């Protein structure tokens, strides 16, 4: 029982971690809490749905997985379109506000953008849930008492791969280093010749792509809904704060902790209270260690 709950927690936690990385990056580099991050997950899931439906005639599946080549195309398309959407929202809404230097206006605007985007999804795709495939996956026993589907294993593996990739991007490439420098001190970064506008663009591309992948993976293993991203916003923030705002590895750790805690809570609470667990953990962290587990005291 506990083994199964832990496994479910890691699966949910991996999705939360991917979404929280984007959140923690925009929080750190652009310095505001982006409440529209959840909607980037939602749009990612729906963009992928377009590609999957376009390839509806192609029957290809990888081994035991529920999907094949169309899903690879769908993931790439979702990442590209979601990045574009994030840059568009930034250009239309956040960029003018950054210039006007009213601090919390950015947060209000992101709250408004979140509602707007969510209802745009309802308008375009309708309020009913959607699925990438109607096939039913058989779960297999990987450890005594722990059953997972092949798709869920893929989800965790892809998340791990992306986190390692992001690590090398941030620590080895020039652009990654520029992003870290801008996060630490935007003025100093600008003085040393870093193109801050380019860094901002790439922050949205990286954050948007990871959010899109998280949305697709959530849609693949749970379901696609216009409210899916909004329902995840509390776990996303909880993960970012738990790990320490600005810390990419903290977001991953926070995501896993939140995912596991939400699933273990089933032992003492009805499952409907899962989202409240993220909130309680967040409040506890804010009381005890407001900088989070891996956060720097600066923030």
């Amino acid at each position, binding site marked *: 029982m506990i083994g199964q709950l832990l496994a479910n927690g890691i699966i949910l936690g991996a999705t939360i971690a991917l979404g929280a990385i984007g959140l923690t990056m925009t929080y750190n580099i652009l*310095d*505001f*809490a982006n*409440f529209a991050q959840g909607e980037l997950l939602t749009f990612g899931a729906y963009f992928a749905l377009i590609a999957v439906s376009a390839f509806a005639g192609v029957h290809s599946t990888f081994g035991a997985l529920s999907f094949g080549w169309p899903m690879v195309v769908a993931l790439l398309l979702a990442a590209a379109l979601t990045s574009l959407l994030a840059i568009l929202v930034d250009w239309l*809404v956040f960029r*003018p*506000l950054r210039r*006007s*230097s*009213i*601090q*919390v*206006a950015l*947060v*209000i*605007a992101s*709250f*408004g*953008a979140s*509602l*707007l985007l969510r*209802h*745009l999804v*309802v*308008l375009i795709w309708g*309020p009913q849930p959607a699925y990438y495939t109607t096939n039913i996956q058989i779960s297999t026993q990987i450890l005594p008492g722990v059953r997972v589907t092949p798709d869920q294993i893929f989800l965790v593996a892809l998340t791990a791969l992306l986190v390692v990739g992001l690590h090398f991007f941030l620590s080895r490439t020039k652009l990654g280093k520029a992003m870290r420098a801008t996060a630490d001190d935007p003025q100093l970064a600008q003085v040393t010749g870093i193109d801050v506008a380019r860094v901002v663009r790439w922050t949205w591309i990286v954050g948007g792509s990871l959010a899109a992948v998280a949305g697709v993976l959530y849609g693949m293993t749970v379901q696609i809904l216009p409210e899916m991203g*909004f329902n995840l*916003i*509390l776990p996303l*923030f909880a993960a970012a*704060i738990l790990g320490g705002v600005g810390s990419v590895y903290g977001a991953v750790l926070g995501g896993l902790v939140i995912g596991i805690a939400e699933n273990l809570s089933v032992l003492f609470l*009805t499952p*409907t*209270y899962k*989202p*409240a667990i*993220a*909130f309680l953990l*967040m*409040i506890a962290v*804010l*009381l005890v260690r*407001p900088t989070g587990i891996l956060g720097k005291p*600066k*923030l």
Partner: protein
Amino acid sequence: MSGVLSYLVFFLTTAAIYSIASLGLNLQWGRTGLFNIGVSGFFAVGAYAYAILTISPLTGQPGLGWPVLAGLLGAMVAAGLFALLVGIPTLRLRDDYLAIATIGIAITVQLIATNEPELTGGTNGLFAIPQPVAGWLHGSGGVAFLILVLICVALVYLALERMIHSPWGRVLVAIREDETAASSLGKSAFSFRLQSLVIGSMAMGLSGALYAAFIKFISPQDFLPIFTFQVWAMLILGGSGSSAGALLGSLVVWAIWTLSGGLIQAALPAKLQVDSGAIQIILIGLLLMLVILFRPSGLLGRKRPAVHRSTVPSKEQA
């Protein structure tokens, strides 16, 4: 009473109930710079507290059958307690942590409302909620209740205006503008912020209680984040920082909301009408964005409305 008149009474009562919440938000955001995006949560706490306190146990529902006045006061106390709960862990930290915590409390309240049928009626909600002054001015429709709500608006308005222009209110603005300077004069920023959060939330609780009394039926579906968004739109459009602006904004935004709803129903084919709520939200959302971008002080606000980036030392400190 004719249809148009009774509709007008309904419209004004709703707008007035909203305006109480937006007056509370004006104290929190407009005067203190507290970023509460869980307005729907405090509104819901007030509505449920009023309903649970006043519903007669004879209806077979969880109710205590208290008098309506005790229900209204109880609703304010309950909302204030919830404000303490989110304020204490977050108000020492940077501004947006309060925002995240308030949205968290709104979601949690809704979870409790949905999942505790013995307390809240669950998804079926609570019905037969007693209404104050019901039956007064016989045959006048809801005019008596409208008058009661307007009296509440006036009382809240006067009380908040008095507070805002007292030394206490000036400390709030001082903390918002320059926390370091205010602290060095011996003012505890945390304590003042907490007081402002609690008092503002009590107004939201009163607004929720009046809503429950007006509609006489509540369910978790009445307390979605859209409510928070509407109240914010009212305050920002009316003019953040100004109580009169909060009142005017409530009237204008509620009018736009109602009219656009009617227009959409009249103009759009039936297929799209399912999503008319979505179109309304997009319209109000666009309006809100335009106001923030091009007239951040709103209709009646002062020229310098929000906290200036360079004057927010809490960001670096927290």
